[in-house]
C-alpha cells in the first residue's frame, strides 16, 4: 500500500470538524536530523536504510512512550457561514513521557534542542510522516525539548524522560500526511533502537599489547561480542593519526575485556571504536549499534 491519508479538506482553521488523524495513537517516535528524509516510501520500509540512517546519526529512535498528551493550540470562536464554530489556530504540542533506561538517558538528553523533524510510530506500528509525493519526510518541528531524566521515585516504574515537541505547521502534516503501513514492513518499527554510547577503559598497555574494557556509558555494562577481526570494530592509531592494524584481537570469556596485539605501541597512541557505520557488530536486525567515545590515549609501560 502506498502513501495514504490525503486530508487536505480537513485543514485546521477551515471550520471543518472532521479530523482524519488520531493523535492519541502515538506509541513511539524517531527524531530525524535537519535535512534528513527517506528518498521514497520503499526506502522507509528497508531496514538496511534505517540502520544506515541511525549509524550515520541522522535518525534517533526514542524508546517507546510511557504516556502521551496533545496540547492543542488556543481555540478561538469564529463566526462564519456555518455559524459560530471553534477554530484552532497556532501550534500543536506533543508531550511525551518515555520510560528510559540509564544507558539511554545520556544519549536522549543530547538531542535536546536539536533541529530537525519527527516521524512517529502509531500504536498500529505504522510510521507516519509527510510526503511531497515522492520522498517520505519527517514532520518538521520548531521545538524539541528533552528534559533531564527523572529517577524512579518508587511510585512509578523505571526512570522517565519528558519530551516536548512543538510541530512547526500542523496543517502541513494534516495535508501531506504519509503513512508507511505496518503491513508493508517485515519488522517492528517500535523495536528499532538507537546507538548505545560506549566507552573504552584501557586497563594496561605495553609495547605489544593493549588490554581494554568496553562498557556502556552510565552503567558500565560490558559490551560483549565485538568483532575480533583486526580493524573490524577497533581502530588503533599513532598520535599523528596513522592507523596501526592489530595482529590479533580476542575477548576474554565474553566479559567485554579485549586483548589486542599491536606491534610497536608507544605512549600517546590511541584506541577507539570505528564510527558506527563502519562497525561490523552494528549490523543487527533491530538497528541497534554502538557509538564509541573519543579515542583513548594510552600510556605504554
Amino acid at each position, binding site marked *: 500500500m502506498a502513501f495514504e491519508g490525503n486530508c487536505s479538506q480537513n485543514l485546521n482553521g477551515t471550520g471543518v470538524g472532521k479530523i482524519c488523524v488520531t493523535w492519541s495513537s502515538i506509541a513511539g517516535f524517531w527524531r530525524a536530523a535537519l535535512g534528513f528524509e527517506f528518498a521514497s516510501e520503499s526506502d522507509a520500509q528497508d531496514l538496511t536504510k534505517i540502520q544506515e540512517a541511525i549509524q550515520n546519526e541522522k535518525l534517533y529512535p526514542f524508546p517507546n512512550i510511557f504516556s502521551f498528551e496533545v496540547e492543542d493550540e488556543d481555540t478561538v470562536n469564529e463566526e462564519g457561514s456555518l455559524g459560530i464554530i471553534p477554530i484552532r489556530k497556532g501550534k500543536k504540542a506533543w508531550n511525551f513521557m518515555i520510560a528510559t533506561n540509564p544507558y539511554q538517558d545520556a544519549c536522549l538528553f543530547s538531542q535536546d534542542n536539536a533541529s530537525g523533524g519527527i516521524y512517529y510510530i502509531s500504536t498500529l506500528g505504522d510510521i507516519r510522516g509527510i510526503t511531497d509525493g515522492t520522498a517520505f519526510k519527517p514532520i518538521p518541528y520548531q521545538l524539541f525539548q528533552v528534559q533531564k531524566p527523572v529517577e524512579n521515585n518508587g511510585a512509578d516504574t523505571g526512570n522517565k524522560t519528558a519530551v516536548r515537541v512543538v510541530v512547526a505547521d500542523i496543517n502541513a502534516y494534516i495535508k501531506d500526511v504519509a503513512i508507511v503501513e505496518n503491513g508493508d514492513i517485515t519488522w517492528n518499527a517500535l523495536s528499532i533502537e538507537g546507538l548505545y554510547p560506549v566507552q573504552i577503559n584501557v586497563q594496561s598497555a605495553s609495547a*605489544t*599489547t593493549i588490554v581494554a574494557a568496553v562498557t556502556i556509558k552510565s552503567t558500565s555494562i560490558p559490551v560483549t561480542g565485538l568483532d*575480533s*577481526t*583486526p580493524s573490524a570494530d577497533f581502530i588503533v592509531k599513532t598520535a599523528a593519526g596513522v592507523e596501526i*592494524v*592489530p*595482529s*590479533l*584481537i*580476542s575477548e*576474554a*570469556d565474553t566479559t567485554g575485556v579485549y*586483548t589486542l*596485539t599491536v606491534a610497536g605501541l608507544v605512549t600517546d597512541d590511541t584506541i577507539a571504536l570505528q564510527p558506527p557505520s563502519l562497525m561490523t557488530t552494528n549490523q543487527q536486525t533491530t538497528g541497534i549499534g554502538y557509538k564509541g567515545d573519543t579515542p583513548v590515549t594510552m600510556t605504554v609501560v
Partner: protein
Amino acid sequence: MDNVIVLPSGLKPSKEWKPTKEEFYKTLELHLRMEPKDRRKSLIDADWKVYSKTMKPDKPKGKKEESPI
C-alpha cells in the same frame, strides 16, 4: 575476512602478522589465558599447526621457474 586466518581456537590473526614460533606461542598464551592450562596448550599446538601451514613462505625454496626459452 580475507586478510585473516581463522584458527581452531577461534582466534583470527591478521595475515600480515609474521611471528616466529616463539612469538606465536607467547602471544597466544596471552589471548587464551582464560582457558585451563592443559586445554590452552593443546589449542595453541593446534593453532600453530594450522597457522604455520597456512603461512608457509610464498616461494618454496629449491623450485626455480622454468625458462621461457
